[in-house]
């Protein structure tokens, strides 16, 4: 009976560091055993770090007009005849170094993806928590709103919204605030994904006795939702977050490709693919193909990580 003999002296608890705790946890173990997850993680961090250190790594700055020369346009990558050695991945139609432009563009795409997902998560988690915890009419109302939102496709909503704002403010203002518009529209269009998942977990969690215990303690609904229920609903939130980041990056690329996203002078992966698309049949395939490849790889590794995380956090396989 260890619980009645504590005063005879229990050995002091060794407090291992956070990192080693993570490394030795179930998640850490499953990560080490899963080569796909390791490779995906490595590739993901390679792309992300390269993108975020673009000002250091990139040989040119695509935002600096003095470094762009239109005469340098459409040089092929170095392994093709007729290339210039200073442009390792060739140049695009405006004469920008493709490698630099891809690095800066990836950074912008990832930032837009993360911010949009943060907005989605904020809206969706708040609405899902309230809906699940309060229940009744509030729940019905919020969930019907989510149903209505889900019945429009994200891209349709985004295209209509962006087209209207572009017409309203003119392309000058629009291109200045394009990042904000994109984050806003992608963030608002996808909140029901979060809201529904969070609501389902909240419904399951609020039946548990620790929530009753918190209510008996006199804690207010806000505190119970945020401090007690939310931390216990995090695993599904993590899983959708990864998938949603990939989705948001794709949405951004699609919108930019359609000319409703980032303007050509602020390269994102989508706008880069789009600007190269005009030249694809004139032989300059690399302007579209190389950023396209980066986009595919980035989205693929995020999705693979999401898959792995879903398996690990599945309560049927892992109980914690």
């Amino acid at each position, binding site marked *: 009976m260890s619980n009645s003999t504590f005063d005879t002296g229990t050995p002091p608890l060794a407090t291992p560091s956070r990192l080693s705790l993570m490394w030795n946890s179930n998640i850490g173990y499953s990560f080490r055993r899963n080569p796909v997850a390791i490779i995906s993680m490595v590739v993901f961090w390679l792309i992300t770090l390269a993108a975020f250190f673009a000002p250091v790594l990139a040989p040119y700055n695509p935002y600096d007009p003095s470094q762009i020369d239109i005469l340098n346009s459409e040089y092929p990558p170095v392994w093709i005849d007729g290339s210039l050695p200073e442009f390792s991945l060739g140049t695009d139609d405006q004469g920008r170094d493709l490698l630099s432009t891809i690095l800066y563009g990836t950074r912008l795409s990832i930032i837009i993806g993360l911010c949009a997902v943060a907005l989605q998560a904020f809206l969706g988690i708040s609405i899902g928590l309230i809906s699940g915890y309060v229940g009744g009419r509030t729940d019905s109302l919020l969930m019907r709103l989510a149903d209505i939102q889900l019945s429009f496709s994200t891209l349709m909503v985004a295209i209509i919204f962006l087209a209207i704002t572009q017409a309203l403010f003119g392309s000058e203002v629009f291109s200045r605030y394009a990042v904000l518009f994109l984050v806003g529209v992608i963030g608002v269009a996808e909140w029901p994904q979060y809201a529904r998942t969070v609501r389902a977990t909240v419904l399951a969690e609020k039946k548990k006795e620790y929530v009753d215990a918190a209510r008996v303690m006199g*804690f207010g609904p806000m505190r119970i939702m945020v401090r007690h229920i939310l931390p216990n609903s995090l695993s599904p939130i993590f899983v959708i977050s990864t998938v949603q980041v990939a989705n948001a990056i794709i949405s951004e690329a699609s919108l930019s490709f359609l000319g409703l996203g980032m303007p050509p002078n602020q390269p994102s992966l989508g706008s880069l693919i789009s600007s190269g698309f005009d030249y694809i049949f004139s032989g300059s395939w690399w302007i579209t193909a190389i950023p396209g490849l980066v986009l595919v790889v980035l989205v693929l590794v995020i999705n693979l990580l999401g898959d792995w995380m879903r398996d690990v956090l599945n309560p049927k396989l892992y109980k914690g």
Partner: protein
Amino acid sequence: MSWDLETGPLLRVRGLEKRFDLDEGLLESLKFSGGKITRQTRAVHAVNNITFDVNKGDAVCVVGESGCGKSTVARMVAGLISPSNGEIHYGGARIDGLRGKDLLPLRKKIQMIFQNPYASLNPRMTIGQTLAEPLRYHNPGKSKGELQDKAIAVMKSVGIDPAWSARYAHELSGGQRQRIAIARALTVDPEFIVADEPISALDVSIQAQVLNLMLEMQEAHGLTYLFITHDLSVVEHFGTKVIVLYLGSICEVADTRTLFSNPKHPYTKALLSAVPQLKDDRPNHIRLKGEIPTPINLPAGCPFASRCPLADNRCAAEKPMPLQKDDGSIVACHAVEEKRIDALDWV
């Protein structure tokens, strides 16, 4: 309503009822019968017209088989669900129907211990956080050191090493968790503790430990308990007064000693005969025949009539009223009232 607080009961429950609606919303309540669409709502009558008092320092046990409304009574007293009918008075003031901020002072006085210590502790919180949160919440003016001292004192008093405060609930055994749950209830210095089957999820060897801990705490803090259980040997050890419930109605209320030495209601007799005894000079278990009626359609008469060997026409038609006996116990039974009970060949 007024009575002397010094001598009056701490908790007074009058005509308490709880119905849970089965058909929620308009569409579910529409029924097609006899060529017409009618609107009818069904409800589970979990608790029906229950009246009892709990005096200060008592340990009142509520017993009964599963589904008889024991836990519903506990949750209503603790303020987790509101009664459909009836009144609950605590310390002279009516407490049912209180909401939000009005409820806060009461939360410090009435605390609850739950059945399953595996579910009643937040799995994402360490023991220290679990105990510190109510302390911080209810004592906003106190310094961090004072609260820490209080948390350590409470942990020590329930036999938990304060060094465990960095651990999570899943690292502890069931008995240890239940100690933490008791400690959490004690952090706010309550006067009254509602315990909803606090030991039934525990190992038999741990049950006695937790029970004794609760008795120690009763002496140390002058607690009053409302103790829900289905284990009669626990009642004998723990309770000062017993309430026997059947299908949401009171069968018998008596002092523990009176109840165990002289059970009056046929259901109580049957229950007591089921307690395992070491000495074998007791008659065999009484086997009740018949079915428990559904709490959705309650019988018009005595709820126990369908299983009672003494049931007659009056039992089937008229619900017996709780009547006080000479030895202080309260019994709701026509057979006891008419003194037909002596004809019973059980005991």
